[in-house]
């Protein structure tokens, strides 16, 4: 296929990806979706999860935080609070975060009220996906 997608991933810390790719997959608010060249104009919110794209037959994985995705004229624009390429994921840090989040959730369940349950839950989710991605537990 000669048609290509232009994938742009932009975070508050700058542009992470700006590449010509063949396919893009991500987790939207209502489930996973894939984008091929010629996709219709599409807007969605992104969940904490993974974004992957295929370029020259190779699939690359990226961790993404909550954000927004728009597809328009073969251009995929992803705006997220933070994103990391799989190679950049700090597994040790993610494991520490996972332990912390689990601890907080346990304490919340034990009845401590000063714990932000939603935040701990989100932290847990982020850490889990980071670890899964880094240790290649998520196959496509």
């Amino acid at each position, binding site marked *: 296929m000669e048609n290509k997608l232009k994938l742009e991933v932009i975070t508050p810390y700058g542009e992470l990806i700006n590449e010509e790719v063949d396919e893009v997959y991500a987790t939207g608010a*209502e489930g996973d979706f894939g984008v091929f060249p010629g996709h219709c104009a599409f807007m969605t919110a992104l969940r904490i999860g993974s974004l992957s794209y295929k370029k020259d037959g190779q699939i690359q994985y990226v961790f993404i935080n909550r954000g927004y995705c728009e597809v328009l004229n073969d251009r995929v624009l992803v705006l997220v609070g*933070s994103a990391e390429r799989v190679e950049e994921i700090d597994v040790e840090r993610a494991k520490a975060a996972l332990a912390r989040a689990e601890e907080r959730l346990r304490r919340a369940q034990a009845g401590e009220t000063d714990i932000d349950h939603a935040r701990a839950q989100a932290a847990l989710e982020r850490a889990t996906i980071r670890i899964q991605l880094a240790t290649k537990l998520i196959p496509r």
Partner: protein
Amino acid sequence: MPTLRDIRKKIKAIQGTKKITSAMKMVAAAKLRKVQDSMLRYRPYATKMQQVLADLAGAVETRGDVPPILLRRPVKTVEVLVITSDKGLCGAFNTNILRAAHKEINRLKGEGLNIVLSVVGRKARDYFKRRDFQFKNVWTGISGKLQYTHAQMIAQEMINAYVSEAVDEVVVIFNEFKSVIAQRVVINRLLPIGRIEAVPTEQPTFIPFTYEPRAPELLAMLLPIYIEIQIYRALLESQAAEEAARMTAMDNATKNCDELIRKTTLLANKVRQASITKELMDIVGGVEALKQSE
């Protein structure tokens, strides 16, 4: 009259201080460059996101299905978020912001509104603690290691308070970085959002997007990001302004050291000359006395 030794010691001390202040100036300059760099890298994200939200809000508004955080309601309680630094030695940076914040709080109280106070930075915490204010949230230790997650955290608190109707309006007060020598105190309303300012765009105004979920729900999901963007910008601006203020303050301090060294050196020379003159007079006096006794 101080002795020559005391004065020399004092000069040495001032020279020591000067070294410190000029080093601090250079550190502040380096940090300022770092923050400015972050601001630059942040801009594409902020502008694009704002653009998206403005378009989306426009699309939703025409259908009259507006999420609550866009709407105003009668205001009884206002949350004030004051952003200061953790550390001092940055001139009038904190004084300006705290004075403006206090004035604004008094003004709002004068209008019969309840105030909920949240602060970023040790300086604001200390200032308002001394004046017996109650805090809703205190965030310290952010400056120097500011992350976007800080903004997300603060935004979440604000939105929760607004949605649960604990507060009816949220304003943020922070120092804006105008230039290295000028900071400006800014008071912005964060919530309710009101109208999202549109950025000039190259996109045609109407595109038949497929929204997932439907546009109003999508907007409701994305609007918190708008608050995050505003808060992150305020935090970045404040940091840049802080380092700029510190740079100027340390530059002035260094200049003052120079001035003090000059004055004290002058004094030292005077004292030295005075003592030489005195010794000379002693010698002349002695010679005269010897002459007379001969």
